[in-house]
């Protein structure tokens, strides 16, 4: 058993693809129309294993949307991405107009920050301990 695919729910797949590639800097791997208005879209990180994919899933199912909105209202990140330097990434994203709900903060051995992905989610970025 392997972990090669994870997903995040998004409000609008096209907008999400733009944000996740142009702002976060991921690279599109798959973009396949699957009938109707929906697409199977995945992105990968240019800095990580390129076979680990993140799927940008439509939140069209009301159950999914309720969960997504609930998390957002409680300020809970939908997922987390690792970065080499949280402070640098924070400045880079802020300059691109990204809103942070938590500035870079030291929590135990890691430093993390939380931002909005403009697709209905909060995303945590974290910097692992140096010794890792």
């Amino acid at each position, binding site marked *: 058993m392997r972990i090669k695919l994870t*997903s995040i729910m998004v*409000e609008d797949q096209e907008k999400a693809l733009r944000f996740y590639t142009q702002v976060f800097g991921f690279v599109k791997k798959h973009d396949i129309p699957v009938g109707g208005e929906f697409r*199977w879209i995945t992105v990968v990180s240019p800095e990580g294993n390129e076979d680990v994919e993140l799927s940008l899933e439509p939140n*069209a199912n009301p159950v999914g949307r309720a969960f997504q909105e609930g998390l957002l*209202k409680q300020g809970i990140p939908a997922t987390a991405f690792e970065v080499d330097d949280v402070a640098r990434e924070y400045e880079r994203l802020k300059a691109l107009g990204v809103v942070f709900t938590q500035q870079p903060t030291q929590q135990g051995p890691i430093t993390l920050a939380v931002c909005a*992905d403009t697709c*209905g989610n909060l995303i945590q970025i974290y910097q692992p301990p140096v010794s890792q």
Partner: protein
Amino acid sequence: MTKLTDVLTRLCRARDLMREVHDQTVTIDEAAREAAMSPFHFIRQFSAVFGETPHQARIRSRLDRARLLLVTGEKSVTEICMDVGFSSHGSFSTLFARRVGVSPSEYRRRARSMVAVPGTFASHPFPGCLSLMGPAFAIFEKQQASGSVRVVACESS
């Protein structure tokens, strides 16, 4: 830190307010006041967090509700149009067709044709988590297959 999360809470509340259907439509200024921001700052912050303006969020929410009512309910298109907050059938249908790709009645007809069990509807209008993967891989494999066929054809010629 508290202040930032507080802003998020207020924006979420304002978004809920924008999405509700009232007899009198909540204006941007009123929503901004609720969020304790100037209208200019409110629109800017709202867009930066949610990826769309408050007005766009309202329209999207109305269309989403209309879609649900079209698929699951029995009301006429005109009634649904009024129920979700539009005042004109014409502008509703035009906007719906532009965003969704088909007219409200056509959307209903297509969704109804997928109904398998009375009282329920097929999952297609609302994809579940990772449920798109099956069709995507089927299409992907088909593309791969037709690609390899082309390669063979080139080699043989």
